[in-house]
């Protein structure tokens, strides 16, 4: 067995996760796994600090003060478990941007879905990738359903990283202005951030040796089962992303589909929202006019290894 990778400089890890009526058991599973990761990191000198920020976008608090005290006490290797109730559904972009401001110490931020359980070594294998200063964003592999995005064997380079579980240096995150919360409520904010990382000359890496469990399911015939929110917000995000990354033809094509009388109500709403923002001048200035960074292919933002 090859030796475990060791990052050259210890880090302070800041994991942030946006809750939305998340079951407490799910949060407990994630925290237990993070506590274990921190145990290993602290024991082996891979990190000097480890914090977790739970931003709650639910209409009612998922955790009360006693829960927070209990969770902090139950996870002694987490230096801080910070809980912040936004009081409204802020969306992932705005939520993560706000959470990044709540704790100052982390050198590296991890964006994690609350239904994720990281493998004990995942975080440290991701951190080691940042020994290469050209790297700006690292994504872990998801189980049981691996994301079909392609990546380069050997280097792990990929088009974009999904924030189901991804790590970025905090200074880079702040330098790039975080996620584009004006354009993206949820979905595609990670694609947009990845492309801006690459635009800034840094690479996005997929590390299959760093594994996390993301609680997802397939139908009996192996088909992806999108939630209603996924259909709704990914439709909005698709339009915003195509516009922002200079694909007017694609925007037109998507709108044609979404505005068709037979289109899903969620798609019709997405088109209406886009038109409204367009009319009010709320859309961002398009970038990457030569399409050096972005990729749009069959409703995807990278080459895929297999259909899902």
């Amino acid at each position, binding site marked *: *067995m*090859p030796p475990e*990778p060791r990052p050259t400089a210890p880090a302070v890890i800041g994991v942030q996760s946006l809750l939305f009526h998340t079951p407490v*058991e799910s949060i407990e*599973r994630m925290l*237990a*796994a993070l*506590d*274990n990761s921190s145990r*290993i990191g602290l024991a082996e000198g891979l990190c000097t600090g480890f914090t977790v920020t739970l931003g709650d976008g639910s209409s009612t608090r998922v955790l009360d003060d006693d829960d927070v005290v209990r969770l902090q006490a139950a996870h002694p290797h987490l230096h801080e478990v910070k809980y912040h109730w936004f009081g409204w559904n802020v969306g992932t972009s705005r939520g993560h941007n706000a959470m990044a401001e709540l704790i100052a110490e982390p050198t590296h931020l991890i964006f994690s879905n609350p*239904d994720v*359980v990281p*493998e*004990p*070594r995942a975080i440290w*294998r991701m951190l*080691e*990738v940042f020994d*290469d200063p050209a790297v700006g964003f690292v994504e872990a*592999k998801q*189980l*049981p*359903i*691996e994301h*079909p995005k392609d*990546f380069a*064997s*050997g*280097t*792990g380079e990929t088009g974009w990283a999904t924030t189901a579980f991804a790590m970025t240096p905090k200074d880079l995150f702040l330098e790039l202005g975080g996620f584009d919360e004006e354009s993206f409520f949820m979905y595609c904010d990670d694609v947009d951030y990845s492309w801006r990382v690459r635009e800034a000359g840094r690479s996005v*890496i*997929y*590390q*299959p*040796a*760093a*594994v*996390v*469990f993301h*609680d*997802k*399911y*397939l*139908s*009996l*015939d*192996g088909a992806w089962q999108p939630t209603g929110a996924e259909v709704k917000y990914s439709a909005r995000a698709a339009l915003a992303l195509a516009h922002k990354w200079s694909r007017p033809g694609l925007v037109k094509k998507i709108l044609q589909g979404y505005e068709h009388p037979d289109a899903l109500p969620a798609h019709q709403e997405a088109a209406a929202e886009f038109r409204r923002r367009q009319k009010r001048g709320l859309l961002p200035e398009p970038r990457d006019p030569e399409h050096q960074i972005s990729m749009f292919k069959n409703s995807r933002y990278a080459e895929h*290894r*297999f*259909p*899902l």
Partner: protein
Amino acid sequence: MSDLHKYDNAVQPDNKFGHTLALLERHVGADRDGAVHLDLACGFGHIAEPIVDAFGLHYVGVDLDDLELDALRSRGLEAHAADLTDPEVGDRLVKILDGRRLASVTFLDGLEHLTDGSHALAAVGRLLAEHRAVAVTSVPNVTHLDVGIKTLLGEWAYTEAGLLDVTHYQLYSHASLTSAMARAGLRCIESNDVLLARSDQHFSVDHVGLSEATTMSAWLRSVRESAEPHGLVNQFVWALTASPVPAETGLPEPVTSHGDTFLSVVMRTQGRRPQELREALLCLAAQSCQDFEVLVVAHKTNVEEQKSVEEVIEDQPPYLRERIRLLLLDRGRRSTPLNLGLDEARGRYVAVFDDDDVVMGDWVKEFADAERESRGRLLRTVSLRQTASVDTVRGQVGIRSTGAPTAMYSPTFSLTGHLVENQSPPISWIFPRSLVTDFGLHYDDSMTTTEDWEFLLRAAEIAGVRDIGRGTAIYRWWETRESSRTEHVADEWAQNQGEIERRIDARPFLLPAGETRVLRAKLRELKQLKKLNNQQSRRIARLEVAQSRHFAQIKRLRRKLGLDEKGAPLAGARRHAPQAPAPAAAPTLRQRLRPRTRLRALAARLRGR
């Protein structure tokens, strides 16, 4: 027959006396000079003279019946009265020995006649320990197949003598006799049981359940043979030695509650793919239901591989790590680690989870929910299949999925369907541990592949299968790396499949309710297809006959026209054909048309008009 005479049997090589003498021959120590043989519940002491003759021991008979004791004394043998149910019987035997050295004890067909034999056994245990002596006991087996089958059918017939002797107070199976001995500080060092295919309970003679030729009997016998191998033992005849009394000495308590742990996950690993092991344990760490234990069986690992497995386990979060047991195994084939896991498992159900399998977050929960409604049945979900390969990124080994998760296996279970093809990767089903503890099911270690298929068929036959109808697992299909699929050649898989079929055909096979409906439908379909096939065959045969007739006609015609098989003029025909005399005059139109007309008529026939 009176009680006095019913066991007045002569010493024969094939009865309990002969078997006892054989055991004594092998186990009585060499220093026999002046030593005593104690015969408890001696009755008439039939074995007395053979023991004296064979071993030169001083025979001492002990029983309660004065008539029998007198009979012994009349033959010049020492005999004493003692109540073997007396709590003080140990002291009484010490008194009888009176300081003499004890070499051996026999206690033949006596235990079952005592209202409480524990004092007598404890006394034997104490004497064997003190004198380093050996004992032989014989006890009827109340679980003989003849009794077992009849009991199943509601029949229970006491007899004057035999397995269900009306004077028996205690009834013994192999397990309960072993426990009774253990409680008395006794351990069996060799058994020389008396086997009887037809015991004294083999009546009536035309009993369908008892006949070895009937289907029901054959099925019950095969199940019993797998569950417990002493179905034909008429009398247990065991050589005993003293052993420490275990801490748990009481009689077993009826267990009315279920085990504490729902699932035992048996995970075999060779320590060669630590990344896959990490992924497998991650899947378990993330389960929404954590009511399980994990038995990681490291099979034939070298020091380095074992260390890597230990490191992976050490890395696990405490809530999972404390439920993982690492078992090391340095022998056997593919099934040996599974069987070790089965023997060590404590859960109500057992899952076989190879170290490269992947499961969804509700894998355990779906099974646990199904157990509430279908306890005792196999519980089956559906596995998807996904191609994968090993990939290295920045020096770190990872797993790369190369294809989409694909539905390859039937969403519903059919036992008859599984006779033809295995549609259930092990990760997609779990089985009750009772199949192991009560039915003796284990994975067959003689099979180099398909051991899971063979086990599934046997388990499903006995327990039945509950389909859960959810996809909860991904069975990885390795493209570029070794796996059981690539390690074993196709011939080997075919041989093992043949072996499975041979075993199924060797005994009756039980189908669940409703399964014959599937069979009927398939048989009807097959019958229909055969009918169609026959019709088509007959038609083809007719066409072939017609075709060959037409070919022959064409051939004849061509020959007549001087053409070869391809329709070209025959050179020889031109060369050797007699020169036609020059026509005296040009042929008439009728003469010229006749051959053409004939040809047309023939061509029309050939076309099938």
